[in-house]
């Protein structure tokens, strides 16, 4: 925590990237995924509304359409990425015991990553006709 050490060149502090050792990367990706989700979430809700009352075959056919499959996968990746980044901040802010905080961070990362993989896999399996 030597950020104000007068013997340090400013570049050294910049390379330290702050206490999170991650610079502004987290902040920026959170914003990029947020902007993507502004559009993709509206698309996803519109898709759901258009499928209201649809039977199994037509729901599958809708997901299988390349346009829908691609946008769905984009939505799923952006959503779970954004969700993980947000949960990370909430845990950093409110869980103060280091061991518990690390456990929570690992669980959130694993769950979000697995859910993203599983849902993208499901869309691909439907779209590629299994």
């Amino acid at each position: 925590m030597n950020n104000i050490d007068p013997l340090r060149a400013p570049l050294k502090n910049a390379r330290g990237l702050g206490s999170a050792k991650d610079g502004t990367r987290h902040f920026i990706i959170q914003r990029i995924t947020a902007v993507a989700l502004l559009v993709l979430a509206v698309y996803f809700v519109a898709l759901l509304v258009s499928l209201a009352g649809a039977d199994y075959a037509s729901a599958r056919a809708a997901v299988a359409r390349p346009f829908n499959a691609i946008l769905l996968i984009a939505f799923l990746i952006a959503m779970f990425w954004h969700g993980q980044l947000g949960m990370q901040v909430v845990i950093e802010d409110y869980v103060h015991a280091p061991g518990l905080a690390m456990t929570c961070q690992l669980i959130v990362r694993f769950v979000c990553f697995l859910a993203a993989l599983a849902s993208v896999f499901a869309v691909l399996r439907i779209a590629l006709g299994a």
Partner: protein
Amino acid sequence: MPSTARPLSPHLQVYRRQIQMVTSIVHRATGIILVFGGLLIAAALLALTGGADAWACVTSLAGSWFGLLVLFGWTWALAYHWLNGIRHLLQDVGWGYSIAQFVRNGWISVIGSLILTAIVWVAVYSCGGIA
């Protein structure tokens, strides 16, 4: 005065509730809700690829009173997080920081999210409702 007697800020027990803090807390709360909603989306997609029986489970759950409550809550959480997210992005580029704008935009998020939720559900029921 000893340093421990100083008022701490912001301390929820003594802090007057106001739109600025409530919209911030609700943004986080809806974010957490939406992560769990995302898990349900993943489960529904797995059911859709799993077969007609699994999908029938999803639709009957979604059509039950509890399922409708979850879907309705998810819609509102998404609407709020979406609208208030726009507000946060605008604040990130330095817009909307006067107190009057801040309060007005907070109310836009709250009331707008209710309007968006109503629009979505009117659309759902005019498209044929939940199967």
